[in-house]
């Protein structure tokens, strides 16, 4: 079977590219080893939170301050704005709020105000910029959320308007399981009417003007438990992202994959893209390995969204050699000399932090002379060189923006010639 586009990777970048292409009539296949970083990261869309040490108030206004070679350099601000609006429209069930013009400041599970451009409605109520009174509610027996530390840290955080924060710990109805992950807690909200319990536990213990922060476990299937809580408590309730697995991230994955399925996109998990058949500077087919062997899928275009080191899209071996694991693409941002030595202090700038694939403006990986490696190969997400997303707080933003832009790059046929020298 042949596809218009094969997308390698099912993280936010791959899902975004696939959905945009399918909505424009393409026949799309996603191949992936498994689900991507949606299940790890909070479901916020962080476009740009820090520029160096400076907190960013408006991502759109700050993008020009990024260094050359940053992935956003290939995504004009108006395209970024379009991409975010498109993203909100296609995840309507989660009700994303915000935009590229100004960052929300959402509390982390450590009580730090973190800038995000978009947040699902179940989290957006935690925006700290307006000040006010907050109560953070922990559940006894749930180890991934520590409200006393959150409240104490937030009370000392630098914020535009002062806030008050306090902590409350509640004991949920007993369960046979004493060790609960966020995923299991969320399942209890889906299946055990934990919402009832929480309403009763909170209604007389929270002041009318307090906003209520809870760990992001209010339902795995949907945010219905969150909606019900807000309605019945008559107060703002918001989820705070905590350690993986990320419940809001799983909801986001479900929302996007439902849209992909209804758009006819085929998703194959448990397989590994291992290479390509090349003809005249183009990828003719993507080779995909599963337990029984390797299968080649003929394609017109390819999106590489295999992620960075965390996802296995990039690898460093014990001899110090870095490689891109699917197509063995040339890499940019590698340290000088052969041997990688990491900096001795954890928070110092680390080598390989910005390593990845450099691209042209159509998001096509380029070689050392800035020519596309393959005319019909585009890249998106954490595989791209030039960003330190966990420091900049830009990971999910880059994924949405470049996933969208890679799709647009495929939809607008390329004119740039391909180097004869490659491969």
């Amino acid at each position, binding site marked *: 079977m042949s596809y218009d586009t094969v997308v390698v990777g099912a993280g936010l970048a791959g899902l975004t590219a696939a959905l945009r292409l399918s909505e424009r009539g393409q026949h799309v296949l996603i191949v992936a080893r498994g689900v991507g970083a949606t299940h790890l990261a*909070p479901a916020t869309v962080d476009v740009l939170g820090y520029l160096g040490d400076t907190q960013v108030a408006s991502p759109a206004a700050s993008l020009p301050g990024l260094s050359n070679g940053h992935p956003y350099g290939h995504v004009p601000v108006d395209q970024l704005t379009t991409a975010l609006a498109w993203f909100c429209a296609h995840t309507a069930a989660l009700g994303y709020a915000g935009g590229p013009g100004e960052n929300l400041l959402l509390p982390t599970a450590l009580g730090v105000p973190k800038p995000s451009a978009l947040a699902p409605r179940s989290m957006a109520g935690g925006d700290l910029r307006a000040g006010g009174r907050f109560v953070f509610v922990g559940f006894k027996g749930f180890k991934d959320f520590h409200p006393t530390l959150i409240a104490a*840290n937030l009370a000392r955080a630098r914020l535009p308007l002062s806030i008050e924060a306090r902590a409350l710990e509640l004991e949920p109805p007993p369960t046979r399981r004493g*060790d609960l992950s966020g995923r299991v807690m969320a399942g209890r909200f889906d299946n055990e009417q934990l919402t009832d319990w929480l309403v009763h536990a909170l209604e007389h213990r929270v002041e009318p003007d307090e906003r209520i922060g809870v760990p992001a476990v209010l339902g795995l299937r949907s945010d219905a438990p969150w909606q019900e809580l807000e309605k019945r408590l008559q107060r703002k309730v918001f989820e705070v992202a905590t350690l993986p697995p990320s419940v809001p991230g799983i909801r986001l994955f479900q929302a996007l994959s439902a849209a992909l399925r209804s758009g006819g996109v085929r998703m194959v998990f448990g397989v590994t893209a291992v290479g390509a058949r090349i003809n005249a500077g183009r990828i003719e087919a993507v080779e995909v390995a599963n337990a029984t062997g390797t299968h080649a899928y003929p394609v017109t275009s390819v999106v590489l969204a295999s992620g960075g080191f965390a996802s296995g899209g990039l690898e460093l071996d014990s001899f110090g050699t870095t490689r891109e694991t699917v197509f063995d693409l040339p890499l940019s941002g590698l340290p000088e000399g052969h041997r990688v030595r990491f900096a001795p202090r*954890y928070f110092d700038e680390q080598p390989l932090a910005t390593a990845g694939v450099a691209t042209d403006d159509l998001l096509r990986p380029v070689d050392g002379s800035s020519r596309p490696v393959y005319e019909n190969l585009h890249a998106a997400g954490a595989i791209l060189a030039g960003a330190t997303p966990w420091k900049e707080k830009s*990971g999910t933003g880059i994924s949405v923006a470049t996933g969208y832009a890679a799709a647009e790059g495929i939809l607008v046929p390329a004119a740039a010639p391909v180097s004869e020298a490659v491969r």
Partner: protein
Amino acid sequence: MATQSPSLSSLEADVLVIGGGSTGVGVARDAALRGFSTILVERSDLADGTTGRFHGLLHSGGRYAVKDPSAARECIAENRILRLTAADCVEDTGGLFVSTPWDDPEYGDQFLQGCKATGVPAEEIPVAEALRREPRVNPDIRRAFLVPDAALDPWKLVWGCARSAEEHGARILPYCRVLYLEMDGDRVVGADVRNERSGEEFRIHATVVINAAGAWAGQIADLARCTVNVRAGMGLMIAMNHRLVHMCVNRCKRPADGDILLPLRTACVIGTTDVFVPDPDQTEIRQEDIDLLLDEGEKLVPGFRQARALHAWAGVRPLFEDTAKVAETRDVTRSHALLDHSSREGVAGFLTITGGKTTTFRLMAEAAVDAACRQLGGPRPCRTADVPLSGSENHALYQISHRLAEREPVPQAEEIICECELITRSRLEDTIKQRDTTSLDDIRRLLRLAMGPCQGGFCIYRAAGILHQGGHVDQAGANQTLLDFLEERWKGVHPILHGDQLRQARLDDWIFQGILDVEHVPV
């Protein structure tokens, strides 16, 4: 228990022990068991120096059988004693010496002779049998020998000895640094000490001061204007995820670099190197040493470089040399040295015990306290070879599966704070209370928290939250110990970061920076 701050401006004891490694706590326990009032001071946490940074091999003596027969005899004797008295700290993995294609198979004959002469039980087994027991070991080995090596948990041993010493009346004072030794003429009569946590200074009067500061013994001796030449021989170790071997696997050749691979709890450790360093506190890990260990590992277990390396660290051996300079630190004897400074320099009331190795710590302690008895009114018999540590009374050796076995009947009974090392919330909370510590790094050494594959990616946020929630630290303290831990952990992670562990490190970056935004916590 151990960490109550001395609020008195002066304390008194028969014996003051300086140094909280295996030797120091061994001396303190020995002296306390003989009925002496005893105080131990350690500038940092217990077992934070050499003891907590060695590979964890309880030597059978096989390693020294050819080169250093007296060390071999001491090792096998102490090995037998510790299996009884510190059984809960010893995992009976057994040891295997193998001749790889890079080793002279004839050395095996010398090895067997040496073992026979020193009383180390050694038995040659067919290569096929060795490979059946150790399927990952290089299939091209030519000879294989079994010896009673074992794996030793250094933290458990040190804390076991410290608790036992306290049960017999000793005071164990970690984080108390010796500033000066108090002299009365030619006699050492005590020490001025600073509590490194509170900043408080106080004096300890003692009839005998025993310098058990290991590689730092020279620095302590200087305070009494005595000379102790201890060379610091730095050894590098790398912990690998999983147990690639079941037994302590040694190369059958003269001891050299990277020739030991042993299972230690859920990981395995390859060691070691031997590089002279001028300052025992300056142990920089060099890339060439990492590569050397990985290459040597590849000879023992093919595919070693593709296996996941978790953590690298360096420890410093205290190598005593009394006279001329020795070019190679491996040529310095591994036997210990007991120095009575009254006969050496005419300084009474002051002994130094150094050199040696963790396997023989008890013997070193016995020798030191025997010597102290001579200054304390006559001999009293040593009891440490007979009295087991608490937890080891029934002589049951440690089983790797014990934490799992404890949880198996009720797998979901309680929150598991560290999934890698199966540490429950109540165990963590009890330890915080007992130790009265607020340092995640101290807790790591006590419980092995954050020592598994994720290197604290998940458990450290939880542990910081629990410390704060329990009122043990304020928010600034919780944030600081979290940041300190991330820096401390990175020291061991960054030198070996590649492959799957880099992947893990990036996930941890995402957790701490991308999700929690730890770099912007108020401190």
